[in-house]
């Protein structure tokens, strides 16, 4: 069972309380984007086997969106953090590198 700590209300939430929202930090493309860029933005996903940055909503709690860094093989959670960021903060990357030395998954 997956447990994630909501960075807003501090609740350690069970996955049944949460709604998964897919890959995080996907850069939004504007009207000037090429067709390829826009298609990539809409559909293409990293889908990594390992460290993954993703969006979650504390649906049955405070209702807010937040981000999580999680390993898709071990289900280990490295950190949860605010959704008001365009990239994972330095301390989150550091937390991942502490446990996965040599990891180069970002950007």
């Amino acid at each position, binding site marked *: 069972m997956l447990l994630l700590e909501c960075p807003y209300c501090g609740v350690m939430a069970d*996955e049944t309380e949460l709604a998964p929202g897919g890959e995080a930090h996907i850069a939004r493309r504007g009207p000037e984007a090429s067709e390829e860029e826009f298609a*990539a933005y809409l559909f293409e996903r990293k889908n990594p086997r390992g460290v993954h940055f993703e969006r979650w909503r504390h649906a049955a709690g405070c209702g807010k969106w937040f981000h999580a860094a999680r390993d898709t*093989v071990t289900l280990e959670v490295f950190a949860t953090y605010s959704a008001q960021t365009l990239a994972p903060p330095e301390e989150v990357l550091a937390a991942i590198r502490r446990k996965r030395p040599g990891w180069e998954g970002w950007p």
Partner: protein
Amino acid sequence: MRRYSAFAIAREAVRYHQGWERAWRSPAPRPAYEVVVVGAGGHGLATAYYLARNHGITDVAVLEKGWLGGGNTGRNTTIIRSNYLQDPSAAIYEKARSLYETMSRDLNMNVMFSPRGVLMLAQTEHEKRGYLRTAHANRLQGVATEFIGPERVKELVPIINVSGPRYPVLGALWQPRGGTARHDAVAWAYARACSAMGIDIIQRCEVTGITQERGRVTGVETTRGHIGAKKLAIVVAGHSGVLAEMAGFRLPIESVALQALVSEPIKPAIDVVVMANTVHGYMSQSDKGELVIGGGADGYNNYTQRGSFHHIEETVRALVETFPIISRLRMMRQWGGIVDMTGDRSPILSKTPLEGCYINAGWGTGGFKSIPGSGWAMAELVAKDAPGPLAAPFGLERFREGRFIDESVAAGVAH
């Protein structure tokens, strides 16, 4: 290859079964092949088989990191049906279903195809209208299905509760020639037939990299060394994203866990497949007597082959409500597989940005039923470097073009 037959069983019976030969060879990899297929699941093996049978290409290796059929092919709940909504889906799924009808004979192995009939319950007005629409679409596509009322459902499945308080059964989409087959046997039958035609199936050989020169594939790095390839077919289901990364492109696919479970064996109680998409559960009875049960997939990316317990709980709750007599059965085993989900719930059979590299993926929760049709279409794509009519609508470019093949209703519950 020595043929299996009633006569062979009799012959072996009188000589202590000493004469059976191994079903397939286990050769060491050669330095290079014309075609390398990654993934010895049903789809990879069927691709190799039809490359040889339909296109005369036998210089083929199928590389498998574990054992053949040990992925989703050996983990699924074996429902076979072709009652999808869109024409391209109906074409490839019906091709597959019809190949299942003669598979045991064609491959000389009993795959226990059992066209016992598949019922998809309508439990809301909305779902009922959806299935009525599918039944009309199927009629135009030449796929034999029919919308039936609750009385007929009760006749077909006496143990069902059609008047549950939450979700009464309002009717069902009925495909009498749908059913089940023995999943392992399907992989084994293709493997045996491939091996007999000279194709190398190499197990415990994980692909760890893809080599290329000037935008064209040249081979693969594996745990058993480099293997050259003029053409490469990636057929690895849940691991498609991992292989695509090696090849240098991304896919519109996310991998999630899907689970199934079986009960203790009981006397014959239900002789059709029942799917209840609104409440998220489906059930059939295996020839051993176990009830084979499946439900919803996880909502988040996952490569663990386990899945979350609350899905099991929800599935079992839904099925106990639908089939009250199962409430005291013990569940014996539970497992998970990693399924490759696309946004429109339709597969990808496509060329890729890397020349000479082809991909067959995105069958998600429903690709056991399509193994023969998918292998047939994929072999044509690889052999001719161009998709035939079955594969053409399923190219990767459909996402850029906004030409989705929307099966989110027909795919409904995971199956």
